[in-house]
């Protein structure tokens, strides 16, 4: 227990994968302790079945690509905890088949989804084993978020994400983000909200205090704003660890012998 505690601290759980890793120390200076690098998977329309000539008929491409490579020495030198996250867009429940067959999915820490239809949203809130429900800021959410579905998602421990750097980039996104956030406030009293950046480069990140204050515009009160980047993200990380390990109640890990007290 002694040296295994990781300080998750303030988390920014949505950094685009094209973010220059050399500039990640800026995020650390802004006060964050944990980040998650995102890989976006767009919805691909089903290819018409074509007869395979010589190829092995059982060869199937993994729906989910491999996570972003992070050099080992970078991980050691970096003071931030770095997690891997995947964002999947989907419109119907056939996604679960693809996810079950994917080997690469297990390499990711956080699974986020962008439901594109009401049916998909219903499926995400009710049955999908995911961590975060998010939305594309460039378009309005195409369905109405109902109170019942929101509550169902909250009971299952799923979090709703609001990202802010798209609001910096583009005024249409700003409207969509604020309207989505207010929608979550109206429907769910802003429970289980996490605020993340979605930054593509280091100029789109903001400091911890700024993000907390931004929570006011997103419909969070001051307690909820702090929760959105500290407590809810820690609960999310706990849920993610639970999902990765499956049903368990004991974790065994190596303890560094040198650091034990000499009696």
């Amino acid at each position, binding site marked *: *227990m*002694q*040296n295994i*505690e990781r*300080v*998750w*601290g*303030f988390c920014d759980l949505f950094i685009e994968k094209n973010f220059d890793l050399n500039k990640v120390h800026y995020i650390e200076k802004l006060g964050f*302790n944990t980040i998650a690098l995102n890989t976006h998977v767009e919805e691909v329309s089903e290819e018409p079945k074509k007869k395979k000539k010589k190829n092995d008929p059982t060869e199937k491409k993994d729906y989910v690509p491999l996570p972003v490579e992070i050099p080992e020495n970078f991980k050691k030198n970096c003071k931030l905890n770095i997690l891997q996250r995947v964002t999947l867009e989907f419109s119907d429940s056939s996604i679960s088949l693809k996810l079950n067959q994917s080997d690469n999915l297990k390499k990711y820490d956080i699974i986020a989804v962008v439901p594109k239809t009401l049916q998909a949203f219903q499926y995400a809130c009710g049955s999908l084993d995911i961590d975060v429900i998010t939305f594309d800021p460039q378009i309005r959410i195409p369905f109405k978020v109902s109170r019942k579905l929101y509550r169902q998602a909250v009971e299952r421990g799923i979090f709703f994400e609001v990202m802010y750097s798209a609001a910096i980039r583009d005024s249409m996104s700003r409207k969509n983000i604020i309207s989505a956030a*207010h929608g979550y*406030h*109206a429907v769910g*009293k*802003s429970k289980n909200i996490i605020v993340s950046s979605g930054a593509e480069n280091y100029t789109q990140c903001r400091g911890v*205090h700024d993000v*907390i204050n931004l929570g*006011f*515009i*997103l*419909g*969070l009160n*001051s307690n909820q704003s*702090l929760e959105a980047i*500290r*407590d809810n993200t820690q609960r999310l990380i706990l849920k993610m660890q639970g999902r990765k390990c499956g049903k368990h109640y004991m974790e065994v890990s190596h303890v560094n012998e040198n*650091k034990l*007290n000499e009696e």
Partner: protein
Amino acid sequence: MLCPEIWDFPSPKVVCSNKKCLTLNSVSKIVELNNFYRNVIITCPDELHTPRFIEDSLLDDSDYYEVANCPLTEFIDPVFIQKFIKTGKLYCLTANTNCMIQNCAALTPDGILTLHILESTYQTLGIEGTKRPHKFYQIEIPLKDLKNISRVKTALEKLKLFDFNISWVPEIENVCPSSIAKYFCNKNYKVSSHSMSIERVAPVIKEVPTIHNSDIDEVVEWIGMLAHDANLTPTESYVSTYAEPECSTPIKTSRISIIIVKGFLTPNILINTSKLLEDYVKSRDFKHYWACLSVQSIEESLWQWNTSSPRIFQSQNASCNIFFTQESHSVYTVGQLKYT
């Protein structure tokens, strides 16, 4: 439809207090209310250089030590308690810890080890504590009167190692304060010694406002502007609308000397300096002469706003400004919580 309120943003709460007509005793009590200060700014009007004896009181014998990777169980060792806690004043604070996201600890001269623990960690420890804001618990362990040592030891062993800033003031005169560094060194911990850093500022001014005839908060702001070497007379009001405090009978002098001392400051150093400053002010024959001692708190430390509020770890920014004059002293404190 419930619309969130997005027009009535409350301004951050600032705690101010202004006390007048104080004696040195009451000033000492105010300084001693808290144990951990980050820097002190001494302002002496009508001086080219701050008097040597005042600088020496801050710099001589004021070294503090940083002990790296030390477990909390060291502090409940009966030998340690006998040698240091019962025979002097020990000031100890975890270095580089953020009290919003990490566990912190502090040892105060009254012999109480205060722990600031995350809720999830607290539930595993097994010692009683009190609930604090932002999902933290505070555990106070009285070391001078320690009971259930084995239980406390098992609990403290569960916490990780910390880096501490330590300063010890022995009761007996001829004991060297560095004995504490030697004690940790002998136990094979990495100990480094640090001394206070000093910066001397001699800004150019036209006259010095007196605290009798001007608002004390304006004089505090004026001193702050001088310490930062800021422009007191901005020509265009876009960047700065600062105006010097109005005073009907200012001290006519164009010299003022400011020193900024940074480090791990403890109340005993500040009280000694206060005594010297009081004597110095009495020795000057300017009417309404004053000298000021401003202390700033360590931002992530154990802090108590006043005698009626509890002493808790909070992320705050507070400053206590003591004005010494020939008749009596005034104290202006101002502070703000970083997270509400």
